[in-house]
């Protein structure tokens, strides 16, 4: 038997005080299998030990929330006995080491989180962050991640309908791959993970267990160094075909009464799934590991318990339903094995080759995982930037440059590699403010978006956290959907550094405030820390996945301009905020200034106004103003129009022109409105106490502002050109 040395303990990522707690819980030394189980259960990835204290402050309740954080995914009510189940999850560390498989298994994992609850997945999204385009690895990582997401999602037949991508040197050594899945279930057929019924069989289904991904959760809880490439064997390999079979088999069995509880095997595999089910049900489990379907011979208990082989589930089924369940999985040609049963002693007892190889108390492991109140310091406040001190560039030239920069260029090259139409319900495809999918066989629609502006969060984590939530709210409102709830994926550096912990604390505080004031609760989420390489942390990136409801999906608004002679209406106040803007960074080469503040009460009123106008059929096209400011938003609407319709803008003289064009003031939308409808729109805006102004008209094929003009076609070339040229290696 392997002796437990301080070295072995350190290799398992356990700190000396944590190991002391292990000894206290057990009253003896653990064996290697037990140590491995403690290690993964108490890893940052599984235990949220640094963030728990702060996550608890987020609002999680609303009348339409059926289940908030703590389950595999959040559940919200959309009426008609239907529920939407969704979550976003990171697969950052594996995707950097092995981009195709890392991203693919990220998609597979989040899909399982959703269908394990009884939902058919209906949409996937992803929020991606890559390093500097000039960095030698970036192109390879983009190519691998995109084909991995496509390779998995396309095969399982769930449309990938949206997402976002940023490039920044802070991600050179730690890319972010956050995947989100949205599923649809009957409200009275939702499945949870709490085990119940002493003596009930514990069943393993799906793929066989191999030696892949052992210690993936521990890897995801440490900083990278120059040896990180050696961790490739800890990355799992995905099989989307098996996942597709698993979805169909699980949903087929879920239509019967056989399942008591079900939990997917994600990070930390059989360990976390079995502990979670037992702990939630207040029961124990006895498992014979010899019965686990195995891909390789001679696997030890340690390897079986820590394997992160993909496409596996653990279930508790009703006694007497074993044959029914077995038949379903055999029909889909998947493994099915009764590996144990529930006990009343609150312990996890594992045997292998006739010997007890682990005997652990469940609750102390699952519930008494360490919780830290790590020291933190509030980040220094940055000063606002005075627009009058910022360099002025010809606005249409600046526009042309901006539309071809990595953060604003078209993502078509990416989303054309994703099947975004399979399932036949995609009403708004990628490229708009939010994706819209119809609720199958109904007239309702679900709008979905992912948002965060990392440069704002870096400049001011509190404001940046508020802004991420507000932008998700705005993107959903811009298509006409009522924002219902969010999932969050908090990506940060090493929480043991007080300044990083300060970013986490402040960003969560900002998010929480925005969620409360916008009635937009957090129902699920995931935390990814230690995104650092050789001491360099990523920009703080709390990604928000927002979900909204359209009662009539045929009434969603799109961003493309529809005709000539229509008014271009600006909703919301413009002060010309250039701090932390893309104009400042890309045109002036300055990453500085405080980010635009969000006025949540105004955000809410503007959102209500826009949704009402869309619902009343008064809006021809709608777009929120975000990265790049007003002129970029108008150009995006023109470029999306079928006939490349232009816009003549009438800038006010009260602000410097570049501040009006490129300021990133929050809470704003651009609407295309027919002249006939204009009086009503203006009246409604006043009614909602929201700033409104006609800033131009559609027509022609050019965008003109401040006496300068540029053809929409020329903008399209620049906008569509960058990413394909970059990926072909002809441009950095």
């Amino acid at each position, binding site marked *: 038997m392997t002796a437990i040395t301080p070295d072995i303990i350190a290799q398992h990522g356990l700190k000396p005080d944590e190991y002391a707690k292990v000894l206290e819980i057990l009253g003896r030394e653990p064996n290697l299998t037990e140590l491995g189980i403690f290690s993964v259960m108490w890893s940052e990835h599984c235990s949220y030990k640094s963030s728990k204290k702060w996550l608890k402050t987020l609002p999680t309740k609303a009348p339409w929330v059926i289940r908030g954080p703590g389950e595999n995914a959040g559940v919200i009510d959309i009426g008609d006995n239907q529920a939407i189940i969704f979550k976003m999850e990171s697969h950052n560390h594996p995707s950097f080491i092995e981009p195709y498989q890392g991203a693919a298994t990220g998609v597979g994992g989040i899909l399982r989180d959703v269908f394990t609850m009884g939902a058919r997945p209906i949409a996937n999204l992803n929020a991606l962050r890559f390093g500097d385009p000039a960095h030698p690895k970036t192109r390879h990582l983009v190519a691998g991640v995109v084909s991995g997401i496509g390779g998995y999602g*396309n095969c399982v037949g769930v449309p990938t309908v949206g997402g976002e991508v940023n490039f920044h040197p802070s991600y050179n050594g730690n890319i972010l791959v956050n995947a989100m899945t949205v599923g649809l279930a009957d409200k009275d057929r939702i499945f949870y993970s709490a085990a119940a019924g002493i003596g009930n069989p514990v069943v393993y289904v799906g793929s066989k267990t191999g030696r892949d991904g052992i210690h993936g959760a521990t890897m995801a809880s440490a900083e990278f160094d120059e040896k990180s490439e050696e961790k490739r064997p800890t990355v799992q390999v995905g099989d989307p*075909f098996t996942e597709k079979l698993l979805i169909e088999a699980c949903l087929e069995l879920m239509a019967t009464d056989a399942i008591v509880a079900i939990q997917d095997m994600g990070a930390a595999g059989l360990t976390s799934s079995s502990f979670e089910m037992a702990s939630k049900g207040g029961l124990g489990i006895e498992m014979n590991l010899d019965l686990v379907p195995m891909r390789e011979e001679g696997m030890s208990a340690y390897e079986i318990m820590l394997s992160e082989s993909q496409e596996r589930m653990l279930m508790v089924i009703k006694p007497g339903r074993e044959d029914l369940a077995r038949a379903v999985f055999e029909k889909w040609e998947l493994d099915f094995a009764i590996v144990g049963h529930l006990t009343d002693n609150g312990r996890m007892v594992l045997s292998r080759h006739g010997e007890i190889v682990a005997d652990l108390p469940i609750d102390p492991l699952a519930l008494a995982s360490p919780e830290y109140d790590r020291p933190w310091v509030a980040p220094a406040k940055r000063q606002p930037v005075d627009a009058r001190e910022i360099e002025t560039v010809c606005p249409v030239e600046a526009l042309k440059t901006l539309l071809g920069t990595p953060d604003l260029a078209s993502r078509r090259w990416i989303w*054309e590699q994703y099947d975004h139409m399979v399932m036949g319900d995609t009403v708004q495809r990628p490229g708009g403010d939010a994706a819209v999918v119809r609720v199958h066989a109904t007239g309702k629609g679900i709008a979905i978006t992912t948002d965060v502006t990392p440069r704002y969060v870096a400049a001011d984590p509190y404001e940046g956290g508020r802004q991420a939530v507000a932008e998700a709210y705005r993107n959903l409102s811009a298509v006409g959907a009522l924002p219902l709830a969010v999932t969050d994926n908090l990506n940060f550096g090493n929480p043991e550094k007080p300044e990083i912990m300060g970013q986490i604390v402040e960003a969560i505080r900002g998010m929480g405030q925005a969620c409360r004031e916008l009635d937009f609760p957090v129902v699920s989420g995931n935390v990814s820390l230690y995104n650092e390489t050789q001491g360099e942390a990523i920009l703080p990136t709390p990604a928000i996945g927002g979900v909204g409801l359209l009662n009539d*999906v045929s009434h969603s608004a799109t961003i493309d301009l529809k005709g000539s002679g229509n008014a271009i209406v600006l909703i919301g106040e413009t002060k010309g905020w250039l701090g932390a803007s893309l104009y400042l960074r890309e045109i002036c080469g300055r990453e500085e200034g405080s980010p635009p503040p969000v006025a949540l009460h105004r955000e809410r009123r503007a959102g209500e106004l826009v949704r009402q106008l869309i619902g009343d059929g008064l809006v021809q096209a709608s777009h929120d103003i975000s990265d790049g400011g007003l002129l970029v938003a108008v150009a995006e609407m023109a470029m999306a129009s079928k006939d490349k319709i232009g816009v003549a803008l009438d800038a006010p003289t009260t602000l410097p022109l570049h501040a009006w064009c490129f300021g990133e003031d929050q809470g704003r939308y651009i609407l295309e409105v027919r002249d006939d409808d204009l009086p009503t729109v203006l009246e409604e805006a006043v009614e909602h106490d929201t700033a409104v102004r006609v800033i131009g008209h559609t027509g022609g094929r050019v965008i003109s502002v401040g006496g300068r003009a540029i053809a929409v076609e020329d903008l399209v070339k620049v906008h569509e050109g960058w990413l394909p040229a970059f990926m072909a290696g002809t441009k950095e």
Partner: protein
Amino acid sequence: MKAAIIVFPGSNCDRDVAVALEASLGHRPLMVWHRDTDLPDLDLIVVPGGFSYGDYLRCGAMAAHSPVLREVKARAEKGTRVLGICNGFQILTEAGLLPGVLMRNRDLRFICRDVHLRVETDATDFTRQYQAGQVVRFPIAHAEGNFFADAETVKAIEGNGQVAFRYCDADGAVTEATNPNGSLGNIAGIYNPGRTVLGLMPHPERLAEDLLGGSDGKTMFDSLVEALS
């Protein structure tokens, strides 16, 4: 019209085509699991898109050797209309019901987008409600749609009027620039010599409803219902 859709493990457009077919037909078509070889009397068999058996060996190769495909072949020989879409087209070529092969796309990437197609003939049960030369818009979503056949086969396909659709621009011009995947002769779909079997890479079922962005695909299902009812 009595229609059935074959469902393989890994099929993922089976429901989509069922929905589109039902809209034209007025009732749900029969869904046939790949192990069922006892087919009832049928007028139309659809082999849908997806990744049958994971497409691990070569797209469509495993499905082409499944028991149900033997039955589909037997029916096709008796004149039952067969429609293979995307992976279904790959399966029909692998099974020898249609000539040629579908190779990796020219750019080696999966492509999902709308394309324009020129309807080459309206003298079939699949296209009778279109007009020859008409330009329609269907989406494609595939990584292996690059049609290839040897020179003799291509000559025969072209000579017999077996080309069903070609990739073109919005005005119907067939050029290299409108070819998304490198297919020979911009071929997007072909018939067997009797024009009773059609295989095509684009998905008519995905644009069969205006809410989803267009309904050019609906005409194909309407044509089949009209011809076979």
